[in-house]
């Protein structure tokens, strides 16, 4: 295990890490640990499904598959969160939350890979990388020059 692995997340305390063993999104987290973005599709008709959608609204199929998708998309909406909940939020500055329309057709809410007091505007093209929160890898937006630095200030 490298030093990077035990560094804390820049944004949140590890108690907010998903409970992967009991999580319906486990395939997403397993892929994320390999550096891949996997999301659910209908096994029958290949329609994009929501994260917790179990029956396909296109064909009624009851099986879903998690497939690796391209880690890229466009900002659907974004906000900068100024309220920082004591005990849960570690950063001492406002932080971004971004809702992204992925090229795969899915939508995913993420923060940025590194601290950023601004949020990308609606329509901005972004790429997806992964933060480490506790033992879990979480998809995160990486898009612009000011998010390419080392950044882990916590």
């Amino acid at each position: 295990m490298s030093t990077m692995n035990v560094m804390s997340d820049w944004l949140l305390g590890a108690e907010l890490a998903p409970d992967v063993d009991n999580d319906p999104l486990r395939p997403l987290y397993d892929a994320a640990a390999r550096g891949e973005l996997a999301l659910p599709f209908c096994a029958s008709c290949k329609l994009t499904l929501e994260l917790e959608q179990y029956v396909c609204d296109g064909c009624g199929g009851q099986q879903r598959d998690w497939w690796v998708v391209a880690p890229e998309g466009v900002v659907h909406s974004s906000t900068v969160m100024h309220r920082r909940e004591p005990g849960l939020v570690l950063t001492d500055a406002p932080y971004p939350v971004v809702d992204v329309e992925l090229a795969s057709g899915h939508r995913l809410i993420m923060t940025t890979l590194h601290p950023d007091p601004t949020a990308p505007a609606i329509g901005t093209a972004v790429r997806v990388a992964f933060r480490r929160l506790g033992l879990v890898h979480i998809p995160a937006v990486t898009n612009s020059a000011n998010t390419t630095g080392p950044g882990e200030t916590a």
Partner: protein
Amino acid sequence: MTNVDIVGLGMTQMSLRPSLSGDATPVQLAGQATRAALADAGIVHRDVDALLVGSSQGVRPDRLGVGFAAQGGFGDLRLLEHVEIKGATTVAMIQRARHAITTGEASTVVCVFADAPLVAGKGSGSTYAQSGGNIGARGLERASGLLGSVPTYALLARRWLHVTGNSAEDLCAVATTARRWAEGNPDAVHREPLDEDGYRRSPMISEPLRRLDCARPVNGAVAIVLTGEPAIGTSRLRVRGTGREHPVRRRRAGAESWFGGGRRAVDDALGQAGMSRGDLDVAQLYDPFTVVTLILLDEYRLTGEAPVGEFVRAGQLGPHGALPTNTGGGQLSGFYLQGMTPLAEAVVQLRGTGGARQVPGAITALVGGIGGRMDHHAALVLERAA
């Protein structure tokens, strides 16, 4: 068909103070509101044969439930249910009560909602930020910093402003108008005057939403008595129409997932009542955030030909406006008790007991409820009958 009338309203004090040493649990608050509502209707517990309870979602060991029949001093009942459809619950309870009374399942129904999110040592924002769990889609959102409900509605607000071309000035107009109404409401938690500068000084919570764009949760309860018995009650507000819509939207690229849908609930309620939008004297909408008032006015087509931003900035929601809306200050400046906030204010207005905030000659009201991320819409049309 049996007429169904609201004949009783009971409210606790709406408190910003946490419950200390368990002296104001949801069950205790519900008991106080129910007693007041029964007294208002001129009846006692044994005159009631149906009880509908509502409470906040989430895992709270003391949330109000069907145990309130026994805890609250009721006798044998013919109907007892916990109604749960998030912010649409209150209107859903009125629909359920109306159905029970018109089909003969029950004759006199108490509907009660109680909530106590404020606990000692924590602000309400903290209570919401700490809740939500860490599995599933919500767990992933929370692990990405989406804590509490404000940032979700901030994303929705940003998107809506982007799509419609409305501006933060419109949010400000909703907040200051709500406050003008609250100044005349002794039950409102924020009554001090608020102008645009005061709004802009309000701390940003999640862009573009400031603290004053957000509702103010309280510990409190409201109870309503409905009956089909003509002998009960002195003030009668008739349930003229109800409607619901539950749009199922998909979070997929290229689609809007937060808005669109809900108009049918209002169309159906008005259709049952044999009324049109122009017949409404007041509107009481569910306004947990300023942007929701704007979206609902637009979605429900309540501003006539005027664009919603222009309508609101021109003061049309305020005193002497074209459509006095959220006349007690709403959830923003009045109190946030979910769907009971708009219903209680409609009852006050149609009874003519609004005091300094009374809309002269108010006979008809639209009451709205929304739940989730604007996933559930409920509408109710009331008319003063006596």
